Structure formats: structure tokens, C-alpha cells
């Protein structure tokens, strides 16, 4: 009797399970049988073109003598960067949460023209391709990993290319929609040297509303989105890098060295205005004061064998503050899954943006002003004709 009872229980459980699986499959099949293609990713493919200009500053010092050779310093910079989502997987958790993994391919081409009046014009190129892995736990946390190998090369004159690797590992925690903290480590060249830095982030305010965001060592900003199309920001952020520089002008006294390193950093403090022209295109303008300007020339030979920072340089100089101008175009491609009010996806987009392109969080939807003039075309997914 006991056995019969057990068999019955097993059978009923099996039938229930089959019924459940059948139900789940048919619900899925009926959708799939329609053969509807839906977007796979949460991230758009994004291309950003960024132009940066800082007017020349004359060098008045004559000691060390390299000052006299260089005469002045200014910057012309063009940056083309992109990210493409390669892989996205949603995982349905037992408690109803949806976690997901994202793999993004990133790329960057930066052409820097440091303007030294006493030297011939050099074009220093940094080009890299990288991978980003983001794991959204579907609850409060988010993991972000990045490896970004790149090459720097002075393409104007004979020089040796140099290969480097930037990387980051960050954990982001959303206490609520309005409060976020991030902790991690980053290997970065942004401050003009090979630095291993802690990443400490803090944000108050929703990403689609007014928010204050401090993301060391990347940026600090106060953002004011308005009218669903515009974002006005006041910000401060470092900008810089390490580049290869051809010794064509014999700036380094050891003429046997064909290449040395040119490092620069500055702190840009100013305002930025982002305009979302259409679903697929945004642009931004920024301007302000560039302070804490520093340039250095390092010999690779003199720093050989150092695992950490480069500390033996043959020229370094702090330069007086100056104005800067920045202009950028942002192109978005493809359709994505919806993620309205999904704070973890917003956070993933923001983190991806903070660590890379600085595209003004082009993907995060802003709340528009209440409309009173709907047209049928824009609401046809929501309203059936028999609703009238």
C-alpha cells in the first residue's frame, strides 16, 4: 500500500512536471512559432568621435635648455572609439530576478598632435581593442571587468611602437535607485604614468535625473538632465596618457635611442552640454579650464626593468592653466531590449561609459515632459483600434 502510494505520488509529480514543462514550452513555442526576431542585447553599438583642442602656451623659462627647444605647448586631439555588444545572456533566477552577462568589444583610435613651436609636428597614435565583461546580478550588484591592450606609435617619423595593457575590475552596488557605490582597482595611463589605482565611486541621484557622481580616478560631475533631450553637466576630470615620441628632433641627448616616451596629464574643469538629436545620434560640446598641466619625457632605457611607475625622466614641466574646447558626435546603432527603470542596466551603461567613451550615457532614457499631443503612429503598439 505504501509502495502504491509512493508510485502514485511519483507519477502525479511527473505528470505535474510534464504539464508544467509543456505549458512553459507551449507558451514559448507559440511566441517562437511566429518567428519574430527580437533584439538580443541591452547595449547598442556605439561610435563616438571626439575632438579636443587646447591653445598653445609659450614657455618663458630657459632652464632646462629643452624649454628653449620646445618654445610652447598646445594640444590637438582626435579620438574615435566604439563598443559593440558581442554576447548577452539573461538568466532567470528562482526568485523572479533576471540577471545577465554582457560581453562587449571595445576599440579606440586616438591621434594626438602636441604642438611644440620649436619642433616639427608629431602625430602620436594610440590604438587599442579590448574586451569588457559585465555581470549584472539582477539584484543590487554589478561586476565589471575590462582588459584593453593598446599600441602607441609616433607615426610621423621612424620610431618603435610600444604595447601596453590597461585593465580594471570593479564592483558596483546599488543601495537604491538614488544611491550607488563602486569599489575596484584599475591599471591606467590616464595620469601620464603607468599607475595601479583604487577605483572608488559614489553617486547620489538617479542616473536619469539630477545626480552627483564622483568616480575616482575618472571623473566627478554634477548632471542636470532636462526635457528628455538635454543634459547639462559641470565636471572635473583628468585627461592624459603615455605616448611614444620619435627622437627625430634629437630632443633626447642619447641619439642612439630612436624613441622615448611623452607623457601628459591635465585636470579639465568645465561644463558640458549634451543634445540628443534623435534615437541614433547625439552630440556634445564642452569647455572650461585645463589646470595642473604637466608634460614629461621619459627614456625607456633609463626606466628599463621597472615594474611599477616610470620615475626617471629627462624633462618635466608644469604648464600654466589654459582654456580647452571639446566637441563630440555619438552614433547609436541597432535596437536593444527594453530596460526602462532597470537600475542595474542603467548602472552597467554608466559604468561602461565612465570607463570608456564618456558618451553622455546616450543610452539611458530621460523622462520627457508630459505630452498632450500623441499621434497614432507613436502609440500604435499600445492602443488597438477597438479601444476607441
Amino acid at each position, binding site marked *: 500500500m505504501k509502495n502504491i502510494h509512493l508510485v502514485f505520488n511519483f507519477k502525479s509529480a511527473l505528470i505535474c512536471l510534464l504539464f508544467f514543462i509543456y505549458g*512553459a514550452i*507551449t*507558451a514559448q513555442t*507559440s*511566441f517562437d*512559432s*511566429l518567428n*519574430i526576431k*527580437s*533584439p538580443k542585447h541591452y547595449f547598442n553599438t556605439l561610435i563616438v*568621435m571626439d575632438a579636443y583642442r587646447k591653445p598653445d602656451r609659450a614657455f618663458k623659462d630657459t632652464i632646462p635648455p629643452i624649454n628653449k627647444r620646445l618654445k610652447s605647448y598646445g594640444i590637438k586631439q*582626435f579620438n574615435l572609439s566604439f563598443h559593440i555588444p558581442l554576447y548577452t545572456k*539573461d538568466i532567470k533566477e528562482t*526568485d*523572479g*530576478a*533576471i540577471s545577465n552577462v554582457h560581453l562587449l568589444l571595445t576599440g579606440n583610435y586616438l*591621434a594626438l598632435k602636441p604642438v611644440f613651436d620649436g619642433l616639427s609636428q608629431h602625430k602620436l597614435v594610440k590604438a587599442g581593442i579590448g574586451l569588457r565583461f559585465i555581470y549584472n546580478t*539582477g*539584484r*543590487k550588484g554589478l561586476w565589471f571587468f575590462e582588459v584593453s591592450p593598446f599600441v602607441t606609435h609616433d607615426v610621423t617619423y621612424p620610431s618603435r611602437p610600444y604595447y601596453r595593457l590597461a585593465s580594471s575590475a570593479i564592483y558596483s552596488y546599488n543601495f*537604491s*535607485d538614488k544611491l550607488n557605490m563602486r569599489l575596484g582597482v584599475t591599471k591606467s595611463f590616464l595620469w601620464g604614468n603607468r599607475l595601479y589605482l583604487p577605483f572608488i565611486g559614489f553617486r547620489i541621484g538617479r542616473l536619469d535625473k539630477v545626480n552627483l557622481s564622483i568616480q575616482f580616478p575618472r571623473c566627478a560631475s554634477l548632471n542636470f538632465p532636462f526635457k*528628455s533631450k538635454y543634459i547639462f553637466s559641470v565636471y572635473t576630470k583628468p585627461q592624459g596618457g603615455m605616448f611614444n615620441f620619435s627622437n627625430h628632433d634629437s630632443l633626447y641627448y642619447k641619439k642612439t635611442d630612436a624613441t622615448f616616451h611623452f607623457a601628459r596629464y591635465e585636470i579639465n574643469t568645465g561644463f558640458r552640454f549634451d543634445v540628443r538629436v*534623435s*534615437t*541614433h*545620434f547625439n*552630440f556634445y560640446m564642452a569647455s572650461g579650464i585645463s589646470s595642473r598641466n604637466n608634460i614629461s619625457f621619459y627614456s625607456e632605457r633609463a626606466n628599463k626593468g621597472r615594474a611599477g611607475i616610470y620615475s626617471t625622466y629627462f624633462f618635466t614641466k608644469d604648464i600654466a592653466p589654459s582654456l580647452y574646447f571639446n566637441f563630440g*558626435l555619438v*552614433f547609436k546603432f541597432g535596437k536593444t*531590449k*527594453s*530596460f*526602462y*527603470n*532597470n*537600475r*542595474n*542596466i542603467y548602472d552597467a551603461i554608466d559604468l561602461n561609459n565612465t570607463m570608456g567613451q564618456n558618451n553622455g550615457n546616450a543610452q539611458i*532614457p*530621460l*523622462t*520627457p515632459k*508630459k*505630452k*498632450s*499631443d*500623441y*499621434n*497614432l*503612429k*507613436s*502609440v*500604435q*503598439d*499600445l*492602443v488597438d483600434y477597438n*479601444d*476607441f
Partner: protein
Amino acid sequence: MKDLFKIFVLITVLFSTEQLFAQTERDKVEALRVTFISKKLELTSSESEKFWPLYNEYNDKIKAIKRNLRQSYNRKGLNASNEEAEELYQLDIQSRQAETDVHKQYSEKIKTIIGAKKIVKLRLAEEEFKREIINSIKEKSE
């Protein structure tokens, strides 16, 4: 570099055409709808983190089904041959069934997260927003 710049200026102009603004309008309405529902539901932080991903997924599916059917009608519709009309008829039946299946499947999942009371609030909020849209269109056409 100058040529590259010209190409991108051209792309910029192309990317700003009117057709793409129509898409922006649709996004705007969706953002408004989500804000409207969000205010009405008053979700807790833990409800919110699970509800919105699921609700977005549900909406994506329902919209995809509706759009697929609408596009099929627009493509073949009035000039459909007997065979095509039969196909359209079958698609119509399947689509409505799929909508019901998706609705049921996701409603059950959403119910486990926010409970039955808030599901009722959700449906009422959806209807209220829809009514606002309809009234606005009606007023405009009068």
C-alpha cells in the same frame, strides 16, 4: 582626416532625418508610460529591482507580436490572394493566442514579485494611461 570628417558630417545629416524622429516619439511615449505606471504602483526597492526587468521583457514580447501582425496586414492586407489571406488568418489567430500565453506567463511571474493587489493596480494604471492617450487623440481630431 578632413575627408573622414566630411563623411561623418554626411552621416550626421542622414541620422537626423524625420523618420528617425518618429522612433524618438515612440520612445518618449514609452518613457512616459513607464513613469506613469511607476508613480501609480509605488513599488518598494526590492520589488522594483525584480519587477522592471520582467515587465520590460513582457512588453517587448507583446509589442513584437502586435507589430508583426500589423506589418503582415499592411504588407498583404487588401491585395491578399486566397492563400495569403488564409496565412494572415492563421497568423492572426496564432498572434492572439501568443499574446494570451505571454500575458498569462508573465502575469504569474510578476504576481510572485509584487502580489495580486499591485497587479490590479498595474492593469488599472495601464488602462488609465491608454485612456489618456485616446482622449488626447480624440481631442486633437475634433
